[in-house]
């Protein structure tokens, strides 16, 4: 997975250099672009394995760059943003970003997001069992084990958990989860999501109040983490 080629699009020289040092010392190949147009050109000429895109670019709004990229680019895009505005993040995720990081971010966090984005989606064929340490989710057998004991889940709980686990490491928005699990008519009914997440945590977390697998992303959604 390493030696993957990454493209960084950010107008701040200091951040670009920091990302280059961080990523190169973790054996990624890094190219960087200062403007949206340069970024789009490089992406088209040598499509990278992953793009890190800053939302605040001088020549073009990051949201529209993301939309242009998504017309043809199918590999992961991670958004960097100084705005912690939830609307901004949710709209970037809805426009096809795989993940987001708010500046200032921690290096460890960045590397974890890149790795999980590069791993991609887990599904029944390529990897039927999601192993999260004390928790195993067998997507083929539709069974869940906690500390080697089977966990009884309702159909909806299982649907929610398997959806999160398949996108391990990636944030899934409230709307996405509601649409996928309950259906398009339910995307405003966040109360269901709250209750089912609380219910799930009681069953799969060692301490439901200090969850290590289902992590709340405030105002945005939830993220499944396999390992600490």
């Amino acid at each position, binding site marked *: 997975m390493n030696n993957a080629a990454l493209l960084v699009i950010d107008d701040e020289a200091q951040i670009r250099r920091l990302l280059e040092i961080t990523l190169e010392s973790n054996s990624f190949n890094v190219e960087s672009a200062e403007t949206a147009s340069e970024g789009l050109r490089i992406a088209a000429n040598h499509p990278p394995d992953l793009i890190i895109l800053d939302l605040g670019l001088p020549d073009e709004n990051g949201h529209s760059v993301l939309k242009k990229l998504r017309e043809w680019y199918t590999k992961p895009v991670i958004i960097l943003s100084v705005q912690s505005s*939830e609307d901004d993040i949710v709209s970037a995720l809805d426009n096809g970003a795989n993940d987001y990081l708010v500046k*200032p971010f921690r290096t460890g966090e960045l590397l974890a997001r890149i790795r999980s984005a590069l791993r991609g989606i887990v599904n029944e064929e390529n990897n039927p069992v999601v192993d999260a340490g004390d928790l195993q989710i067998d997507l083929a057998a539709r069974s869940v084990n906690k500390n080697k004991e089977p966990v009884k889940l*309702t159909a909806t709980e299982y649907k929610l958990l398997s959806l999160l686990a398949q996108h391990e490491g990636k944030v899934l928005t*409230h709307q996405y989860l509601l649409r996928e699990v309950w259906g398009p008519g339910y995307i405003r009914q*966040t*109360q*269901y*999501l*709250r*209750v*089912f*997440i*609380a*219910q799930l945590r009681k069953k799969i977390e060692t301490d439901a*109040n*200090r969850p290590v697998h289902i992590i*709340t992303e*405030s*105002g945005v959604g939830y993220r499944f983490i396999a390992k600490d």
Partner: protein
Amino acid sequence: MLERLTKISRSLQILISLGLVVLISGICYLLSDWMDYKVVAFLLLLIVSLIAIMFDIFPVLVAASLSALVWNFFFIEPKYTFHIGSAEDGVLFLMYFLIVLINAVLTNRIRRIEKQVREKEEKGKTVKLYNTLLNSLSHELKTPISAIVGATDNLLADPAKLTEENKKELIAGISVAAFRLNQQVENLLSMSRLESGFIQPKKDWTDVSELLYDVIQRLEQQLKHHQLIIQIEENLPLYKLDYGLMEQVLYNLLYNAALYTPEYSDILIQVNNKADKIYSLNTKEEAHSSIKKETNQLVLTIEDRGPGFPPEEISKVFDKFYRLSNSKTGGSGLGLSIVKGFVEAHNGTVLLENVPHGARFTIEIPAETSYVKI
């Protein structure tokens, strides 16, 4: 009161002035058998002076002119003409006219000067407040910046002179300072959001227990030497709240509690629902139901075992940039005003009181609730 009078419209001012002049002249006219016309002049002068204290220059001049004409017409011999009989009366009339005009102009000018002085004083106060804010702010921003600059200077100058341990300490110092700077900037952004007055809570169903534990997890490092006692009412409903704003409220309160109370002391956090039923008796529409309306309030209390707040300062702690006179460094003086602002954005209230061995914050927020059954 005088301020308010000058604010009424000019035409109304003119009307009132004329009315007063006519009224006084009328009374004097009725009494003119017992009253010398010179006394009438003084009375009219008095009323114009009063008008000059209250109203703008134009209505005053109109009243002054009218009073002079009325005095001439009704009181100076020969009456009922504008003709003046004796030379003495002519001089008197002229003097009256001049005095009343000078009086009106001078009074008005004094009022204008007074107003300028007042404005200047107020401006002075604002500037003073602003300076305090800037001092406090630049201190809070410059301290971490100094730490970063100092540490990097050391690391860049001659790294060989530093022991490994010192290097690590300097780097850790940079990290802490950067975190503090970020915290200050976040606070300032929250504050300017509040100041702009455009804060609109984005309410969504919130599991308050999830919210609380989320904040506690984020403050793990700061709270590791405190004993948290958490009491959440069983079957607490979901509330419609702005998750982000409430996260900030709890974060600031718990961060304060961690920073300003002794290590190994308790912090008690309670979450309860307060339901108020409003009963109505025998309304026509709802003959069968006696409960008219049920409102729910989320009640959050955070109680610490710290030194409490000096009673004379309690009323000020929610003020912007206010810091207790002897507080240790690390805060910005913004935390509690943000708490208040965000709670009020939810139409809620926050109360601070001293309790035996500590302080207690009580937040009450009226909110829509939902009990979803699975």
